[in-house]
């Protein structure tokens, strides 16, 4: 846990532990809104993507967007949820961001339930539900002081009202701001990979509400929680949670009570402030939406969605790990695997290894040498790449030569490795050729060789230098070392 207030003694904090659950709202990338054919688009002129359904005018009726349901199912499947028959409810409240005075959401029977997300460190965060609902309009508060509390008027743009959302509710499995950030980051990677959402926090297409409570470590029941609304960057998420944990511990330490309320994170002040206290305002009087019938995706449809879904991030990482799992350097390579998948080079990697190249060396060449020209790297011919890596593994080209060939290949991906080798006049120095060169050198440099035989290993560098000079840097230094050692031992 990060403690922001340095004046407080750390020991006061160690008795407490935070419990955090997150609600992540993500906008779906459909062409149209959830209930009507108005365009789903960000950044248009206010109130230009509106129809009677968006305005809740009398007589207008919602009709469910099939694509939105498909995207919601993709998200559910990606989060290991059960996809079940569901219905829609009206959530009633008086707030001008919804002109019909209710939001259509899912209540006790959501489309996706009971899933989980695995974080990169192996810990698991449960997903209670991931349901479909409509987004609300955007309010802009006017005030002279700049404080949301002292606003004198509010402007409403309903372009966002009715845009399809999936709200993903985590179990209260999160125990620190760091874990919360790691969860949102991984969750975002997963749902973006499904193609259902673009996950842009800065544009508000992914927003997070955090439920935070603290309790004494030996206490069983959870403490009173506060909800912090609309956190739109990982940075604010972390800071808001740390501030809130700190605030609640200080209240409890001074024998005060935490009041259940909704809070807002003020970026400038770097603190959370009360938005509203939860009393009757929380009585949303949910009831089944009479204008919509139940949603019961057939097993056939769910299977079809599953088959057509882009391969999920976690599966892609796993496929790569499968191929390098025998490598001695496995533990150092895990981070590299994530990079490879993030850069969309995993398919190329798998194809290349399929042509018999060494997995570890292929992974290194792709994430180091190829990383500077990703676009070209994506066009590499896997067969040519495997051929090059095999030349290097078998010692037919040195690692320096191999890197030079790869860099040429990246400049023109349609050229073949053989053509680059002959164009650059790269000569292959196999062990036999190197041994011959060394034999001549040993005769010439008898003093140095004697020092080496007597145990001075530094002389190896001298011989490598000499061989490189003779071969214009095209020999493999490792081979030189091996042959020298063989001569001394044998």
């Amino acid at each position: 846990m990060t403690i922001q207030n340095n004046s407080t003694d750390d020991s006061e904090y160690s008795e407490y532990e935070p419990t955090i659950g997150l609600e992540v709202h993500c906008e779906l990338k459909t062409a149209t809104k959830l209930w009507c054919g108005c365009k789903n688009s960000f950044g248009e002129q206010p109130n230009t993507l509106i129809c009677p359904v968006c305005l809740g005018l009398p007589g207008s009726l919602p009709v469910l967007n099939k694509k939105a349901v498909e995207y919601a199912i993709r998200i559910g499947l990606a989060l290991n949820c059960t996809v079940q028959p569901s219905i829609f409810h009206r959530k009633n409240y008086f707030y001008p961001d919804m002109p019909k005075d209710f939001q259509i959401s899912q209540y006790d029977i959501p489309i996706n339930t009971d899933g989980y997300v695995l974080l990169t460190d192996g810990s698991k965060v449960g997903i209670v539900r991931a349901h479909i609902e409509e987004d609300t309009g955007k309010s802009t508060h006017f005030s002279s002081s700049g404080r949301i509390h002292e606003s004198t008027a509010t402007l409403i743009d309903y372009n966002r009202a009715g845009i399809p959302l999936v709200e993903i509710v985590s179990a209260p499995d999160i125990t620190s701001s760091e874990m919360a950030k790691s969860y949102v980051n991984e969750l975002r990677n997963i749902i973006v990979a499904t193609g259902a959402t673009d996950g842009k926090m800065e544009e508000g297409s992914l927003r997070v509400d955090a439920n935070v409570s603290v309790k004494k470590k030996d206490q069983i029941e959870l403490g009173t929680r506060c909800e912090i609304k609309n956190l739109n960057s990982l940075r604010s998420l972390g800071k808001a949670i740390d501030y809130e944990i700190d605030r609640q511990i200080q209240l409890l330490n001074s024998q005060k009570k935490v009041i259940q309320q909704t809070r807002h994170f003020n970026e400038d002040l770097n603190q959370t402030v009360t938005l509203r206290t939860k009393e009757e305002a929380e009585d949303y009087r949910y009831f089944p939406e009479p204008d919509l019938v139940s949603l019961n995706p057939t097993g056939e449809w769910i299977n079809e969605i599953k088959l057509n879904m882009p391969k999920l991030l976690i599966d892609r990482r796993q496929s790569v790990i499968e191929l390098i799992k025998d490598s001695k350097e496995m533990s150092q390579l895990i981070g590299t695997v994530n990079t490879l998948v993030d850069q969309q080079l995993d398919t190329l990697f798998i194809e290349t290894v399929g042509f018999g190249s060494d997995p570890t060396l292929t992974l290194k060449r792709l994430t180091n040498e190829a990383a500077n020209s990703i676009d070209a790297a994506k066009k590499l011919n896997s067969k040519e790449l495997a051929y090059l890596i095999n030349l290097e593994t078998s010692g037919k080209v040195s690692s320096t030569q191999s890197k030079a060939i790869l860099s040429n290949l990246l400049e023109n991906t349609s050229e073949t490795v053989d053509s680059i080798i002959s164009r650059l006049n790269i000569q292959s120095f196999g062990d036999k050729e190197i041994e011959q060169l060394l034999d001549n050198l040993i005769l010439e440099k008898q003093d140095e060789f004697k020092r080496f035989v007597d145990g001075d290993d530094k002389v190896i560098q001298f011989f490598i230098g000499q061989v490189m000079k003779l071969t214009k840097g095209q020999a493999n230094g490792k081979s030189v070392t091996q042959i020298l050692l063989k001569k001394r031992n044998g």
Partner: protein
Amino acid sequence: MSQKNNLISKEQVLHVAKLAKLSLSDTEVELFSEQLSHILGYANELRDLDLSNYPPTSHPIELENIFREDVVIESISNKKVIDNAPQSSNGQFLVPPILND
């Protein structure tokens, strides 16, 4: 019907009225307490029936999966949208401040 027999108390009527932002006179509170109790009393009669063979329904019409394809239909003009607004500013709805306690 006297107050103590009512399934819905006056307090409950006042609570619901507050949530719905309605102000009711004492006579109305009395009247609605009676009427709402009557409606609930009718629903209570259903409890006496054996409905174990009937699955719960969320909608009276036996339909499911009514969808619309994801195809854009032209929206209405901003002028038309704003026309009915009591107050507006630069194409947006202008409403009283909403976060005052």
